[in-house]
């Protein structure tokens, strides 16, 4: 008998602000420990939080991008627990009155086709600091640079049905948030973190099984691995006649195992209550509608538009919209006069390879367009153009044509030169010439290849064949 997995995700994303949620310290990643701190985020006696308007704006944008209703009044609350990385002994979060509720994300499920995940809520909160266990021998050091960093927590409905589906949803969510400009969503820098609630049940059973929580998984691949591991652990329990108990687990990426860290009985009672230091957050409806109007085109809309406007395949369109920068680059290349399918091939190929390595574009769209036109005009072979492209990034002042000429890659179609290469090839392959003349006409391809090789790729293949046919007659 099979099992159905039910998954809901809690995703924390760092909002792209210059300063922290409740004070003016920078949010820069990787600075020396405890350099971006002040009385507020250190939790010193007498210090008070003041909300960062930009963080609120980005939170509203994120909520709107996810189709949520942004509430006119939301309330910051204190979530109380003791931990050395939490300077005040409570985290400022939102609890029973979050910033936004009731959105949805459409995504491509690997198993069910087009899918939809409900977004239960989005709320604002501050991050904790970081414990460093490897800096000082036998001691734990604390870096509070991250303490107070603004986060949006995005809680989904339990609408996901497999680990692979959870991963696909996360990728879609990440894309939306990047397109909306609210977060970098970099898992390496911890600006996107995932906790997952998992339960299993028999297909068709309307009741949910007992859920467990897998915490703080640090990559999309590991989300999938961790959820698969937890799903198998629950199956093994139920199939052996045991029960699933409500526990929190940590995933060990090294072993691929999930390990319980605390049971429900040990779970925290966070004693949430409204933070008396912060008046309710009241957002004027005009502000919210301004943010809605200022929202950039989101991935789904852009995909649809790329397919419609440029007759791209769904695959090409979705690859191009994996990053807003790629889609923008593609449209600039088309605007510079390149046929869309050709432009898409270039962007998805060489451009994306270097983008993925460097995070940027080494060749301006107009120069790529000029290069592509050289291929269309027969000046360069496609292969030669790829070599010119690789060189263009390093030669910012040269035109593609100049680079092609410097590298000796411009195609030769002048008949005198072609005849010379053809005659050399025929002289060095007397056997094949005999066989061709005896009727083995498929050897034509072999001769063309040899000419291209001898010309070091410069011979225009369209000109080579008539010359060959003439000399072999």
């Amino acid at each position, binding site marked *: 008998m099979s099992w159905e997995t039910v998954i809901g995700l809690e995703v924390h994303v760092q909002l792209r602000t210059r300063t922290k949620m409740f004070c003016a310290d920078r949010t820069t990643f990787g600075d020396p420990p405890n350099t971006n701190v002040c009385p507020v985020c250190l939790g010193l006696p*007498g210090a008070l939080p003041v909300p960062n308007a930009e963080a609120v704006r980005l939170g509203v944008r994120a909520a709107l991008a996810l189709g949520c209703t942004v509430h006119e009044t939301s309330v910051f609350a204190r979530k*109380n627990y*003791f931990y*050395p990385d939490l300077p005040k*002994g*409570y985290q400022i979060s939102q609890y029973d009155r979050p910033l936004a509720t009731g959105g949805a994300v459409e995504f491509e499920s690997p198993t069910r086709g087009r899918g939809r995940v409900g977004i239960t809520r989005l709320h604002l909160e501050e991050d904790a600091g970081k414990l460093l266990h490897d800096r000082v021998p036998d001691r734990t050091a604390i870096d509070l640079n991250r303490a107070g960093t603004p986060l949006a927590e995005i809680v989904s409905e339990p609408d996901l049905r497999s680990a692979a589906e959870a991963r696909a949803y996360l990728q879609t969510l990440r894309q939306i948030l990047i397109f909306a400009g609210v977060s970098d969503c970099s898992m390496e820098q911890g600006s996107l973190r995932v906790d997952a609630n998992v339960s299993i049940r028999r297909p068709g059973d309307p009741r949910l099984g007992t859920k467990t929580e897998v915490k703080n998984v640090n990559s999309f691949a590991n989300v999938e691995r961790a959820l698969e591991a937890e799903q198998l652990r629950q199956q093994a329990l139920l199939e052996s006649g045991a029960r699933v108990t409500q526990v929190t687990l940590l995933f060990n990426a090294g072993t691929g195992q999930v390990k319980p860290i605390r049971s429900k009985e040990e779970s925290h009672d966070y*004693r949430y209550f409204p933070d*008396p230091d912060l008046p309710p957050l009241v957002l004027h409806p005009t502000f919210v509608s301004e943010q809605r109007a200022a929202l950039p085109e989101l991935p789904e809309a852009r995909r649809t538009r790329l397919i419609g406007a440029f007759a791209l395949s769904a695959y090409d369109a979705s690859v191009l919209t994996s990053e807003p920068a790629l889609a923008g680059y593609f449209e600039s290349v088309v605007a510079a006069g390149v046929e869309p399918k050709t432009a898409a091939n270039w962007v998805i190929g060489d451009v994306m390879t270097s983008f993925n390595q460097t995070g940027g574009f080494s060749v301006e769209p107009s120069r790529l367009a000029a290069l592509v036109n050289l291929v269309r005009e027969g000046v360069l072979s496609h292969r030669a153009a790829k070599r010119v492209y690789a060189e263009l990034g390093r030669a910012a002042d040269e035109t593609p044509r100049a680079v092609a000429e410097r590298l000796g890659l411009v195609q030769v179609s002048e008949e005198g030169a072609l005849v010379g290469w053809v005659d050399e090839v025929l002289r060095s392959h007397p056997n094949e010439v005999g066989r061709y003349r005896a009727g083995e006409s498929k050897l034509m391809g072999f001769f063309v290849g040899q000419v291209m090789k001898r010309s070091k790729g410069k011979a225009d293949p369209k000109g080579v064949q008539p010359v060959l046919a003439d000399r072999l007659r």
Partner: protein
Amino acid sequence: MTASALDLQGVARDTGARLTRAERDGLNAVLHWDQALLDAEASRVEQSRAGGPLRGVPVAIKDNIVTAEQPTTCGSKILEGYCSPYSATAIDRLRAAGALIAAKSNLDEFAMGSSTEHSAYGRVRHPLDPERVPGGSSGGSAALVAAGVVPIALGSETGGSVRQPASFCGVVGLKPSYGRVSRFGLVAFGSSLDCISTFGRTVRDAGETLSAISGPDPRDATTVDRPPIAVESMADLAGLTIGLPAEYFPADLHPGVAAALRETIEAVKALGARVREVSLPHSKYAVPTYYIVNPAEAAANLARYDGVRYGQRRIGPEGDIRALYRATRGSGFGPEVRRRILVGTYVLSAGYYEAYYRKAQQVRALIAGDFERVFCDGVDLLLTPTTPTPAFRAGEKTDDPVTMYLADIFTTAVSLAGLPAISIPAGRSDGLPVGAQLIAPLHRDERLIAVAGVVEGAIAGGAEVRR
């Protein structure tokens, strides 16, 4: 006297001499002072162009308001020797007005108490009778003003911690509307109630001090966008209606307090005010409501004293982080602080939140609603006793927290409603001061000060000070 004629170094020296004498007399009202710092303050003011009434005036600061120049202990072992890297907004504003920060005054630990007996650094003596308490939690500041050591002082109010000791010591204690004075740098206790408040020997002195520190502050999101409180005066009370809430004049009110209030009422009438009995029926729930809201907020506010980043640290026997928390907090906090943390943790815990904290917030709204209704109904100000009795004896209430809590029975409702109120000396009972409390509508702080000034001038037993 013009500002330029002030001998500021002389003021610093004299203040130092008075602080020394007060310490020698065993008042125990000061936790930190330093002649060198006082002299430096005088030099600083000499260089500054600050004019106005506070120029060259020495001020005592309750030791739960942070100052960068001297330690801030909150009267607690857990913050022994703690020095803040920054000063409170109120301190910056006092300095800008030309005041001299003279001393940090003793208080009930983290401002939790009504007698200043709960300080880790010993109890404060009443200036008129060392066997009695000066009230609390701002007992140190009240005693220093009453003893003539400094003319003005900052205290803090959460449920009456300035008005009550002002009443006990025979000085003026002035609490603003919530949000008129920045809490930035006031060590948080009950954040929705906390107000830095002022002491003076006269209404004008307390008023000018409040005026200097009031006004919005971008570092405190709960300050309101209103200008600093202005000190106004009026000739008489003609055309005003003063309400007397029946619940604040119980039959068993201390006879000396009742007598002083009767005289005050007569004085108010003589000044031309109409006097009317009114009812604040929910005020009787103020103390229990206060003792849910306040510990809940306090439990969270005091969580930061964990021994990890600053203050006292004790490593527990097990050597792990939980043991560090237990040992540090167990030994660093006194019994009253531990009691409130326990109560606060309890009333917020799962399954009890609705029954206690939520219910308390609802009652709080009803209490505030009573005041609003009365003020909408033609009453301009309310007049009540500040405390049910004059200063009590040290040790009299320390074994019974609830009796101690009831010392604030006439002040907590005002705090829960966030209203401005003042305690002014209204006479003596067996030689001990009695205070009368005036309460104004929200943000009518100016009118409160003006009316209190008129009443002060008309009643006997003003701020007598022992020199």
